[in-house]
């Protein structure tokens, strides 16, 4: 994985020292809250309902065991013994004291981590496919390009005060696991007719108050032009984005108002003007950064491992885990293991310090020192030898991290909602927990098959509800929680915004409503191989609506 060079290390250390001074001045009263707020936000410190919250960037979702142990240490020493992984592949601590944050940042810097640009109107942490570099279907690893953009965009003077925040994601395989079409800019690594690898470019996606699927504005961008083209998009946005209205300030509104063709023309014009003058990434630099992400030296393994096959044949629970949470690695004899942070009834994305330490041990022993964070709030051990799978599984079972539910109805994305978030209009975590308990780790859940439920506690949509196969949005109606349901959303290469079913449901009704939707799906599907989304796309809203509102 990427290692800081002297410049990176000095840069982060300087920022920590700067923030330490700013916090001291704030606590002494030399800075007012109005003066201090933008400074703390630039360092990832928010104020939530009960305490400050610190958001730590996990660039492109890749973590080392050393970093994970440091997060565990911070959780124990400065927080309440746990952390929360988010849909931005970041980690949030919900209880740090402001006075401790400089020390926390110092601890993070010692393992090459920081909180820079996890807030504010700048280019945020760049996300990627969690299976980057290991997926069997991948064209190329997106992380070197994320890292190149990260270095370019960190404290970029021209783009530090954009009209609004700006999120970029890169996917490296035809199957988009990074939800790139829901981002301000998405790059999809593709191969053109001549066999060259480059990027298809998407712009103007986003969820929140006004959700839009991104428009593709370019079919193929050569790799060396990645910075120049991103710069062209940001220039157009920086000049024309709606600074007059916070709710219209994201690039998706600009794209929507002017039209994708007009934006494409402007971006291409700016790109043509600056191309050559601005940074063209030399191949040597791409190779130099790429080398940090090279596949580790994986000792040859038999494509079929005896111990693994035997256990799989004789242990139904292990077999289920393998079916649901394990996928093929591009190197035969190895597997990619997804660790579910969604055990039945748990808080999606939460992980205790003890679990973090244990996952770090597992990664060290069995996964060549690598851990990944998924935007669906799970963790991944990317390089596990098939022969080691039984041992990894047994350890995960002991840690309550082996629920075999990846992609199932209980693998729910949920934002923190009103239990923590000062912007929330309703709780989301308890709804996720109740749905999880309703379906459980059961044959029924497996019979239902792939079904993504996403829950947000307000229209800001951090829980990506618009792109859930079933989306749940928590609102407040006359002082009580009310949940609006959408159906048919998708975050992958066939990205779609879900359709609202109709009037919302009370907190007492919402789990029953989800169950009715699931039962209706089971009734209308042609067979088990027609998953929820395909069935919905075929039959439409009518049967679901009928089931949900039959007495109305």
């Amino acid at each position, binding site marked *: 994985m990427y290692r800081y060079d002297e410049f990176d290390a000095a840069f982060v250390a300087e920022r920590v020292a700067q923030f330490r001074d700013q916090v001291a001045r*704030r*606590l*002494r*009263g030399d800075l007012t*809250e109005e003066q201090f707020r933008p400074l703390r936000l630039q360092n990832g410190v928010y*104020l*939530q*309902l*009960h*305490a*400050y919250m610190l958001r730590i960037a996990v660039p492109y979702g890749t973590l080392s065991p050393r970093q994970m142990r440091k997060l565990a240490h911070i959780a124990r020493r400065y927080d*309440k*013994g*746990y952390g929360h992984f988010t849909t931005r592949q970041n980690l949030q601590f*919900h209880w*740090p*004291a*402001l*006075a401790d944050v400089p020390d926390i940042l110092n601890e993070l810097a010692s393992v090459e981590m920081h909180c820079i640009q996890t807030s504010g109107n700048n280019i945020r942490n760049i996300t990627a496919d969690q299976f980057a570099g290991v997926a069997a279907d991948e064209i190329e690893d997106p992380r070197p390009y994320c890292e190149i953009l990260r270095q370019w965009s960190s404290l970029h003077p021209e783009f530090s005060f954009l009209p609004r925040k700006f999120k970029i994601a890169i996917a490296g395989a035809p199957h988009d696991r990074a939800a790139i079409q829901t981002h301000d800019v998405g790059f999809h690594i593709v191969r053109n007719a001549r066999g060259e690898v480059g990027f298809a470019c998407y712009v103007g996606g986003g969820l929140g108050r006004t959700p839009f699927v991104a428009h593709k504005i370019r079919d193929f961008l050569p790799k060396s032009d990645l910075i120049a083209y991103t710069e062209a998009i940001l220039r157009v946005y920086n000049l024309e984005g709606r600074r007059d209205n916070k709710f219209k300030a994201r690039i998706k509104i600009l794209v929507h108002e002017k039209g994708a063709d007009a934006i494409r023309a402007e971006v291409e014009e700016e790109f043509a003007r600056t191309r050559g003058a601005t940074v063209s990434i030399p191949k040597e630099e791409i190779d130099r950064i790429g080398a940090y992400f090279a596949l580790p030296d994986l000792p040859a393994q038999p494509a079929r491992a005896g111990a693994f096959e035997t256990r799989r044949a004789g242990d139904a629970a292990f077999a289920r885990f393998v079916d649901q949470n394990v996928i093929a690695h591009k190197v035969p004899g190895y597997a990619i293991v997804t660790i579910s942070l969604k*055990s039945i*009834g*748990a*808080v999606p994305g*939460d992980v*205790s310090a*003890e679990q973090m330490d244990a996952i770090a041990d597992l990664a060290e022993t069995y996964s060549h020192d690598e851990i990944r964070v998924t935007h669906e709030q799970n963790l991944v051990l990317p390089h596990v030898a098939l022969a080691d799978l039984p041992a990894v599984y047994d350890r995960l079972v002991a840690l*309550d991290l082996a629920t075999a539910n990846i992609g199932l109805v209980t693998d729910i994305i949920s934002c923190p909602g*009103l*239990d*923590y978030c000062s912007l*929330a209009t309703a*709780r989301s*975590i*308890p709804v996720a*927990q109740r749905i999880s308990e309703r379906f459980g780790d059961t044959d029924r859940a497996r019979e239902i098959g792939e079904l993504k439920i996403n829950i947000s506690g307000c229209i800001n949509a951090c829980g990506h509800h618009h792109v859930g196969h079933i989306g749940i949005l928590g609102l*407040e109606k006359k*002082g*009580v*929680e009310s949940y609006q349901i959408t159906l048919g959303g998708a975050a992958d290469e066939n990205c779609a915004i879900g359709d609202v079913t109709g009037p919302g449901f009370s907190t007492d009704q919402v789990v029953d409503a989800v169950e009715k939707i699931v039962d209706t799906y089971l009734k209308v599907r042609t067979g088990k191989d027609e998953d929820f989304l395909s069935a919905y796309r075929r039959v439409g809203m009518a049967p679901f609506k009928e089931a949900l509102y039959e007495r109305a």
Partner: protein
Amino acid sequence: MLQVVSANRLVDGRVVYLDAQGNWVEKIEAAATFAGEAECAQGLEKARAAVAANLVIDPFAVAVIETENGRQAVSLRDAIRAKGPTIHYGRAARRT
């Protein structure tokens, strides 16, 4: 409506309430109550002084009712601020 004045403590962000002595305390039960708008305005005035003194941030009035089970904030948001998350978290969340 009965109100109390709440804020977040500057140094650690924790939820605090203004008590009758002008101190900031963590328990909503210990907060000073204000019966009318005029009274509450006085409380908020004290809170603004505490903001200026860099003790607390973002003060506001919280509507409360006294019940058999003690004092409760009227809105769900304020109730969650007063009692903490409605879910088990951290160590408590671990199933044994």
